[in-house]
């Protein structure tokens, strides 16, 4: 019984040591940085076939066992999992990872490109750092977001990437004009521009006069509540209600003013609206 136990122990030790020797035979570092060189040591097995399979690479070559395989920086540009196979009768395999190098570029997505002023959480940006080989950098790095309007700093928000992403959200500024949004990571800087435009019209007001066959109605210059001119092209609707029923004319703002000629006779009520904003009413009488 004792002999059997000793024999079994010897077998187990031999099996374990055999496994360790096998694992040591084909050796590659567990991880390497993208664009670095690395070497793989191979066991002395005589003639063998060496395979390297990874992202963007698939190589097969005949080698002599014991040779050290040198992988060039160009072979290891893409981050990911690489697999090494060495076949000489039977095959041995090992794997290693290539990790992203230091940031070499910054992808910066900013939304929207055009935003009304004073809108809470209306502007957002997402920054993703990539290394020079376009691998996503997953180790946390500091990114600073700067929002400037008319060369004055509106917001400065430091952030750290998490899972390779940093982001911010901000309220749009108080006045219309260009808003520069910049993401900075070390020496890297990416700039985007958001056009801040006037918000909804405020105090929409019209005047009118009698013309042949109807009325000519016109808004006073249309501005938002902050005093910014509402952009040209914004539609203003004039509605006339009279003895002949109701009719509506849509007119775009041009140089801040919208105007329309409405055909009507007799007593007529003309109202104005733009979006959800209503203006004043005019009570006019068309006298022949």
């Amino acid at each position, binding site marked *: 019984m004792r002999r059997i136990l000793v024999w079994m122990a010897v077998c187990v030790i031999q099996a374990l040591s055999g496994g360790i020797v096998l694992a040591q035979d084909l050796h590659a570092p567990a991880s390497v940085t993208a664009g670095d060189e690395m070497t793989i040591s191979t066991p002395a097995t005589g003639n063998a076939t060496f395979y390297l399979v990874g992202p*963007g690479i*698939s*190589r*097969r070559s005949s080698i002599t066992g014991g040779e050290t395989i040198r992988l060039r920086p160009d072979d290891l540009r893409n981050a990911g999992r690489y697999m090494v196979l060495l076949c000489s009768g039977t095959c041995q395999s090992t794997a290693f990872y290539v990790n992203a190098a230091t940031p070499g570029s910054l992808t910066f997505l900013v939304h929207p490109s055009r935003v009304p002023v004073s809108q809470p959480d209306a502007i*957002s940006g997402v920054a*993703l750092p990539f290394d020079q080989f376009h691998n996503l950098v*997953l180790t946390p790095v500091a990114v600073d977001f700067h929002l400037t309007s008319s060369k004055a700093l509106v917001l400065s928000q430091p952030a750290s990437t998490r899972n*390779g992403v940093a982001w911010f959200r901000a309220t749009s500024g108080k006045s219309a004009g260009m808003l520069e949004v910049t993401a900075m990571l070390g020496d890297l800087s990416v700039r985007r521009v958001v056009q801040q435009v006037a918000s909804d019209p405020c105090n929409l007001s019209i005047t009118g006069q009698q013309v042949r066959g109807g009325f000519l109605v016109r808004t006073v210059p249309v501005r938002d509540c902050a005093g910014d001119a509402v952009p040209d092209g914004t539609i203003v609707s004039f509605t006339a209600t009279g003895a002949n029923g109701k009719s509506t004319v849509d007119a775009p703002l041009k140089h801040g003013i919208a105007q329309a000629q409405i055909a009507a006779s007799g007593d007529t009520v003309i109202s104005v609206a733009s979006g959800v904003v209503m203006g004043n009413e005019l009570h006019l009488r068309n006298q022949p």
Partner: protein
Amino acid sequence: MTRQARCASHAFFALFSLAAFLCCGSLPGRAGDSTLSVQLDTSRAGPRVVESLTRQRILRDYRFAWRSLSEAVEFNTLNPLNGPFVGDAKRWLSETVTSQQKSGISQRYTHQSHELGAVFYAPEGDVIELHDTARYELEIFDAGKAVDSQPIVVHYVVLMTPGSDRWVIRQLQAVPQF
């Protein structure tokens, strides 16, 4: 046999044939689906909430992308990569296929299971980051002869963006761990 009985017999035969055709027709599809399973957990995604319909689309398109990837590296053809992949993911996958065409190597992914977790969904919904714990059997072939086969667990960091008619994979990067 009466005329009524003959009609009934013909009707039964037609129905039986139709049923057999439908069953046989659907079998390969089911077998294909059973070898590639994808699960998606969006509970940790933020700052934007992933809507149910978006989740379904991402699941559908991610599954299709892996099916296309498998086909591309098994048959060394670039066509399946057009559509589901863009940007750097498409670039390195294309390089892999081109490199395999030269070396005579091919890879076969079987028994795939992908456990996806959304970790970031941009405020405007224009990019989503997923973590995929992928389990599959990877076979390596040299000139059609199998040289290695092993079950593998790989962690992928994935960036997907919405395209005109589907979600596309822009970044697919294997990492040692999340």
